[in-house]
């Protein structure tokens, strides 16, 4: 029942927001998001006893609910959590209040609709992470798309219409392929006199020929690849990240991107293992190309927001590579890196927004010498940046280490190429820091103010997590371990 609460509370709160105006709306939204986070923490704490390493019984049915939905067709409203879902629900519920708080400085017209859409989005995201029925998963997958489309399209900057339109088309076309694959799988469960079911267990138990899996793999994979996005399905991403309002960019990069990786872990690898082994190498190469490609383009960027967007493209490539290495380390690395990346990228976009709001520009060339006036901002920026660069003792290090170890295990050459990401990330991020924060002041930066209390309230929790994940990764790794082991067993199943 806790899962059901986590799922429906945000949308209920979103409906109530309709009655609030202006400031009341954002305060209500923040309150609802905080309550949601508290419940998620409670769920995590009370479930963590079942999540001890080696306990394979901690299946995905923690706090499960299984009710008939389209009863006659064998489609159920089946939700529940395992360690993997739990971590992503925690990430979502942790970031959403911060994203709401981060938007306080902006005066968005029609604020109640704006915050209602964020909460509505949260329901979609949590639904993706807790669904244990293929059609329910697809349902929430699309539900999460609608609010972000409006958030980006209504409140974005000048080129928003063309850009969000492209984003919507890309993602929905990807998802429709996934739907076609799910419908096919659903009818396969009914073959040989079985009862048709779209339950995850039924999908896992299917025996499909290698030929079928070969094309099913692509149908499903494209949906996830677009969402992440993996090269060459990424072309919507930099534009959408740049043109969206900051909270939407944070949602997109901090959480929505994880939908793709989560989907791969939960709905792609275990369902079509033979397809994965057939095509895994190709995906691996695409992912590694994406890592290098994103990083090199990031180096050339003049716009802070765009730079972070391309860095995100590079980092997600590494996560995808780790996932497709199909090793324990690679998968665990992907899980912890999802959390770390969520924390870092949201923080970086927020800092970019703070700087833009105060100086009126995001162009790196027009900035400089911020440190003098803004010591707090510089420190926060540096910490998040070093986390992204994967300095040891920060969150990025744990994830990248495990991921690279996994990729190396899969193929040393690919591991070596992927490893370049750390160097390139250092190049573009440290260059950005140097040119924005250090050096001579410009006319834009001479009167800048340091962080305010509410901005600190956003950044401090993020920084706490940067170190928490960096110093005690086991807090999180042990929660995901049984789930990851189970996925690996499922993939290895003949």
């Amino acid at each position, binding site marked *: 029942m806790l899962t059901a609460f986590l799922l429906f509370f945000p949308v209920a709160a979103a409906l109530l927001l309709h009655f609030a105006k202006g400031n009341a709306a954002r305060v209500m939204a923040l309150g609802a998001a905080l309550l949601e986070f508290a419940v998620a923490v409670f769920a995590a704490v009370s479930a963590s006893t079942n999540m001890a390493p080696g306990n394979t019984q901690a299946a995905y049915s923690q706090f499960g609910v299984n009710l008939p939905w389209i009863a006659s067709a064998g489609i159920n409203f089946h939700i529940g959590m395992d360690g993997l879902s739990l971590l992503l629900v925690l990430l979502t519920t942790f970031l959403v209040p911060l994203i709401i708080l981060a938007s306080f400085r902006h005066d968005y017209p029609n604020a109640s609709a704006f915050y209602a859409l964020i909460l509505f989005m949260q329901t979609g995201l949590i639904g993706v992470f807790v669904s244990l029925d293929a059609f329910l998963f697809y*349902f929430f997958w699309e539900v999460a798309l609608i609010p972000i489309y409006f958030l980006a399209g*209504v409140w974005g900057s000048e080129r928003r219409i063309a850009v969000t339109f492209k984003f919507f088309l890309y993602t929905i076309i990807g998802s429709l392929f996934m739907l076609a694959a799910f419908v096919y799988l659903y*009818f396969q469960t009914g073959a040989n006199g079985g009862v048709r079911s779209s339950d995850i267990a039924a999908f896992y138990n299917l025996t499909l020929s290698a030929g079928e899996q070969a094309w099913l793999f692509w149908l499903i994979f494209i949906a996830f690849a677009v969402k992440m996005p993996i090269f060459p399905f990424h072309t919507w991403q930099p534009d959408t990240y740049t043109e969206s309002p900051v909270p939407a960019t944070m949602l997109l990069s901090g959480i929505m991107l994880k939908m793709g990786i989560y989907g791969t872990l939960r709905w792609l690898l275990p369902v079509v293992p033979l397809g994965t082994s057939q095509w895994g190498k190709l995906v691996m190469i695409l992912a590694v190309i994406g890592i290098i490609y994103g990083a090199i383009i990031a180096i050339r960027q003049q716009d802070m927001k765009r730079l972070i967007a391309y860095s995100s493209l590079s980092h997600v490539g590494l996560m995808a590579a780790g996932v497709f290495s199909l090793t324990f380390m690679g998968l665990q690395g992907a899980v912890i890196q999802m959390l770390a990346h969520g924390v870092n990228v949201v923080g970086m976009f927020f800092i970019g927004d703070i700087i833009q709001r105060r100086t009126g520009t995001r162009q790196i060339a027009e900035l400089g010498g911020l440190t003098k006036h803004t010591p707090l901002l510089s420190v926060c920026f540096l910490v998040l940046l070093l986390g992204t660069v994967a300095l040891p003792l920060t969150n990025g290090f744990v994830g990248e280490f495990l991921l690279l170890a996994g990729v190396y295990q899969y193929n040393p050459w690919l591991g070596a190429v992927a490893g370049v990401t750390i160097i390139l990330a250092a190049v573009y991020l440290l260059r950005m820091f140097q040119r924005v924060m250090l050096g001579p002041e410009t006319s834009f930066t001479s009167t800048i103010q340091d962080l305010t209390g509410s901005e600190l309230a956003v950044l401090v929790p993020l920084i706490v997590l940067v170190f928490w994940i960096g110093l005690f990764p086991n807090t999180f790794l042990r929660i995901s371990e049984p789930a990851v082991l189970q996925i690996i067993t499922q993939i290895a199943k003949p």
Partner: protein
Amino acid sequence: MTSIILLSVLGIVNLFFGFLKSNKILLPAAMVILALVFGVNLIDWNADAQSYFNNMLTIDRYSVAFTGIVVLTTLLLIPFSEKYVRDGQENLAEYYSLLLFSLVGAIMMVSYDNLLMLFVGIEILSVSMYVVAGSDKRNVRSNEAALKYFLMGSFATGILLFGIALVYGATGTFQLTQINAGIVNPANASLQPMLYIGMLLMFIGISFKVSAAPFHYWTPDVYEGTPTFFTAFMSTVVKTAGFAGFFKLLMAAFFAAKGFWVPTIMAITILTLLIGNVGAVAQTSIKRMLAYSSISHAGYLFIGLVAVNGKLSANAIFFYSLAYSIATVAAFAVLKLVSDQRQREDYASFNGLAKTNPLLAFVMTVAMLSLAGIPLTGGFFGKFFTFGAAIDRGYIGLVVFAVVMSMVSIYYYLRPIIAMYMQPAEDETVAPIQVSGFQSAVLVLLALLTVLLGVLPGLFSEVFK
């Protein structure tokens, strides 16, 4: 049967209301009549199937369910004719009565057991439509629409009738089940060419009525010229009745000749999907876009016919018709309110609507998302069930094509949403659209129904067991 009698009698009574000095009573009267018919119709749900006129008409769950859709659609549509009431339209009573009478035709089309009844039903429905298409007498476009619809419609009717005659010649009966028996009867083997030609001619006639390609040419022009209120009626009630009748024909009468007509129907399906969706992309008027969209939805419904998957198809067609009708009524209702007051129907007339009329914009958005088949709306499950029925029969290629076509459709269904939410109004001083409280309530109901169908599809996905 009660619903047919009630509609005929009350339709005549309604004509007499026209003699009253005031127009104000007409709208409530029509609504009461429709609500009454809707309720009375449902009483038959749990009764046994009953046949009338020597088994020419059977009222069973199938007919009750589809009658429910057409009556409900009309009931939800009628409040948006309020402008006619306010403008003191002199022929209002006649228009309402025509709609009531045309519903009689629609009900006959969903409950016939004899080809003659199908023909009579189609004619009753069509003749009413010819009249209302030209009801805006002083408008050239409306006159053109009426003439075009009438001429083309008469040809189609003739072709349909010819087809019925040939089928009769080949099987010796008008009765659906006996036709099916006649097809398999070896004694009729030499008459097979006649049967096939008859079937083809019948398909052409019905395809015209549901505006399936390549017999769709009239649709955009007629939809555009016909007053919006009646266009909405055409694209929902006529289509629903047409498909329910078509499905019954294929399942009950021609099932034995499946090998012949499945490829034919499949060709129509592919063509309809292609022309409907690609045609809609090029439109600049929302009304014409909706006309092409209605062609494309005929294509999706045809997939349910191709599947000939018994109950699975029947349920899919029912659910699709319901979801499509509700979303289409919502879309046309908003369009009518906007075009009545802004005197135009292009995308730009919707610019900035979200600011001036959040409710209208929201309902239109829900309708567009539903027509595009995006989850949380009924349209998603409509497509889901029809595609499912086809995949179950192994038509994967057809479904993939339909999926690609619905990707195309997202392009044009998003355009009104973009106009409403993301474009500023061209003229900042533009006044909000006037919407009465009652109309708002109906709009909210339409949006709620669409979401209900999208969240709890189980309520309606299994009406035929």
